[in-house]
């Protein structure tokens, strides 16, 4: 959920709205905000399933250090969504295990 009004920070600044495609579904986002924030705003908190135990994971450190929030972004797995800015039309997928590469390796 977005914090549209914050008692200290005031009204949410209007930024350019963009659309992300997450596992085939379209969600609205603001340009430049971290992908993870956009997903959180859309109520998507499970970002990947771990490779060995296939357990759900989400945002943990939010500063790009723990690498727990990695997802497949535009066909590339292991993208740290908490520090990767959202851009219009990005295709984002929940990463299962090591993830599938769009490009043939």
């Amino acid at each position, binding site marked *: 959920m977005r914090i549209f009004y914050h008692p200290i920070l005031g009204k949410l600044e209007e930024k350019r709205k963009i659309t992300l495609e997450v596992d085939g579904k379209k969600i609205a986002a603001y340009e430049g905000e971290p992908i993870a924030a956009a997903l959180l705003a859309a109520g998507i908190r499970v970002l990947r399933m*771990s*490779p*060995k*135990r296939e*357990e759900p*994971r989400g945002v*943990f*450190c939010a500063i*790009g*250090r*723990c*690498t*727990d929030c*990695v997802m497949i972004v535009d066909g590339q797995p*292991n993208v*740290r969504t908490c520090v990767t800015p959202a851009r219009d039309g990005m295709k984002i997928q929940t990463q299962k295990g090591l993830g599938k590469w769009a490009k043939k390796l």
Partner: protein
Amino acid sequence: MSKKDLIICRCEEVTEEEIKKAIREGADNVDAVKRATRAGMGLCQSHTCYTLIVKIIHEMTGKPIKEILPATHRSPIRPITAEILAKSKNM
């Protein structure tokens, strides 16, 4: 979830039990635990689990915490694609 399955290294999904086993077998520092279990060898390069491992080593061996150093830090300290790393000259 049983305590036995408790994950310490989130990236490589190494459990507390596996780490304790390595310590029982003689690994008494972060680097040795890493070599024995892969804890800290994942994407984040031991950033998150390192202090947890230090604590376990300390509790099991009694080694003072100040003597348990992190594993060696080497470039790149954040994941960077090979292409970007390679795309530079004059280094």
